[in-house]
Structures are given as C-alpha cells and as structure tokens.
C-alpha cells in the first residue's frame, strides 16, 4: 500500500509532511508535492501532519486517479527532505476544490 498526496496540496504546499517522513519519499514540484508509491512504507505519520488534510491512504483513492498522479510526478521531480517556505498566497487556496484540474496542465491520465 502507500499514502498519496491529493488535491488540497496544490498551491498550498505546506510541506509539513516532509519533516516526518522516515524514508524521504516526497518529491516536489512548483505547486505541490507527491509521494513515491514504491518508496512509501505505509507508516502513516505524514497523514495527520498536513494542515489541509491533503494526504490519504491508498485504498481511499478508489478511482486510482491520485495513484497515477503521484506515480507520474515522483518519477520526474526532485526528492525533498527538508520543509521549505510554503507559497505566500496559500491561504487563498486552502478551501478550493478541483485545483489540480484548474492549475495543472501538463498531466495526461
């Protein structure tokens, strides 16, 4: 199994998750993070740390959409092991839904 980063992360990108991951399986893009599903050891420590509840356990991703997204970008993006500075405008995106579809244009399912 694995945990997966989902829509709430997009343009919020708090990165609290990175601090607690024992295997450094987060990868960073311009506006959000993903988990590498093959590296995640399923410890679950990151899930409650996200201020916007962006992380879900794998089985909650019924359609497999987020598994595909996390897998795709984890293979492209650099590894992140230290929490950086979140975007200054993150509060504006906190309760928005459908952010991935609205802002991420380079992904084809």
């Amino acid at each position, binding site marked *: 199994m694995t945990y997966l980063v989902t829509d709430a992360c997009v343009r919020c990108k708090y990165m*609290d998750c990175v601090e*607690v*991951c*024992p*295997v*450094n399986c987060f990868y960073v893009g311009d506006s959000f993070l993903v988990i590498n599903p093959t590296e995640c*050891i*399923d*410890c*679950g*420590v990151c899930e*409650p*740390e*996200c*201020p916007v509840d962006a992380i879900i356990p794998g089985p909650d991703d019924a359609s497999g959409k987020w598994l595909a997204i996390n897998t795709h970008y984890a293979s492209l993006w650099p590894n992140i092991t230290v929490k950086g500075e979140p975007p200054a405008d993150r509060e504006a995106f906190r309760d928005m839904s459908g952010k991935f579809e609205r802002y991420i244009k380079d992904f084809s399912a």
Partner: protein
Amino acid sequence: MTGDAAPLVATRVSPFLQERVTWVRHWTDALFSFGTTRDPGFRFSSGQFVMLGLEVDGRPLPRAYSIASPSWSNELEFYSIKVANGPLTSRLKLIQPGDTVLVGRKATGTLVLDALRPGRTLYLLSTGTGLAPFLSLIRDPDVYERFARVVVTHGCRTVADLSYAALIGEDLPADPDLGELIGERLIYYPTVTREDFRNAGRITDLIESGRLFADIGAPAFDPAADRVMICGGPAFLRDAKAVLLARGFEEGSLASPGDFVIERAFVDS
C-alpha cells in the same frame, strides 16, 4: 581560488548509520530483543521509530522499528518478532554481538509526548511487539514530569509472550536511577487471551467492561484527565480508537496535540 583547485563534488551520504550489535536476547521462538551502539549524532524522542535493517545482496533491506530504549540512553534497543519467511527478520534473528546493522538517520513517529495535551494519567495500550515504543517512554523521566501516573498494558496470546514482564514489573521500580522517580506511579497491566492468567481477555474488552479500571483502582476513561497512546495490530488499533472516540477523546498529532495517538506496530512481512 586558483585554476587547479579541486572542484566541489557532491558525495552521496548513505541514509543509514552502521551500528554494532552489543547484545541479543531471545525470549521465545517468535520474539527477541537486541541492543546496538548509537551514533552520538543520532537524536530521537522516546516513542519514535526508525528504519532498521541489514545489508542483503549488497543493498539495505530496512523495516520500520520502534526504538525500545529511552532517548537518553547511549545505546539503542529493539524488540522484534521473528517471521519464518520474513525477508528481514528471518535474517535479523541470527545476529550476534559484533555484527553490523543499518539504522536510519531520521527517527519519526506519532507516539510522542508532544502530540498529547497535558493530562493526569497516561495509558499506554499495546499488543505484541507494539510494546516497544512504550518501553522507551516508561524509561524516560520526562513522562513522569508530565503525568502523575502511567499505566502500561501489554496484551499477548500467552504468558510466554509477556517479554519484559520482569523489567517493567520488578526491575524498573527498583532501578537505582529511575526507581525513585517512578515509585508507585508506573502500573503494569499485562493480559493474555489464550491462557489462564491473573488478567485475561482482550484489552479493549477489559476497558469496555470496566475491569481494567477496577483492577488498577482508577476511574473509567475521562478525556479531561486521561491521555492514551495505542500501538499494536490493525484490529487492535481500530477497536481501541473506536472505544476512545465513543468516549469523547480527540486524536492528536504533532501539528495539533490531542487526547490520544495511535501507531501501527510494524511487523515484517
């Protein structure tokens, strides 16, 4: 500086520290503990886990292991199951003093004191090797500064599985350094499900029936005063969490301290 200065080369640092096994103790044919050296730069909070492993076929084979020793100790201790065909434990169970084990550089986990609000009594509920993080916490003086009383439960199938019964029940209260601090404030409540024993049954059943509280002379769970940590198998976590939520406890995390925290006891597969 000059043209022939050596270029700066980024070297990959291994994500693992190499530690040496210092002692091994086999409790049963399914349980054992061992100690290792500890790198002076390795920091952790009591209750956390770390990736631990062996080099197999030239590559690290790690699994998550709760650190059973307290954060002040200059050695590390681990409490492990032995799984017959487990990729790691089938090898790990063979270690001898002097052997090398790999220990991750970063400890983490949810079973830390800072994830709990202040309270009066700390309940540490565990089954099987889920006891490991609590062995760390009950030997950490910080716990006794934060809580007036600590109740550690250990649920197993048989009496033989109650490893550490002597350490918790007898050695700790008599310990020259910790004994005075611990005094009467540590209550050990072991229970088995498949044999006759002074405490018998599942921990969650003993909580719901009130038997646990009657036995230790404590009031039933009260979210205003009690704080709880839970570590064990998936069914135990699910049942214990449900018991607490039904009584008004709120789950906590480092980001947002609460009344209880839970963590899966990692078992080699």
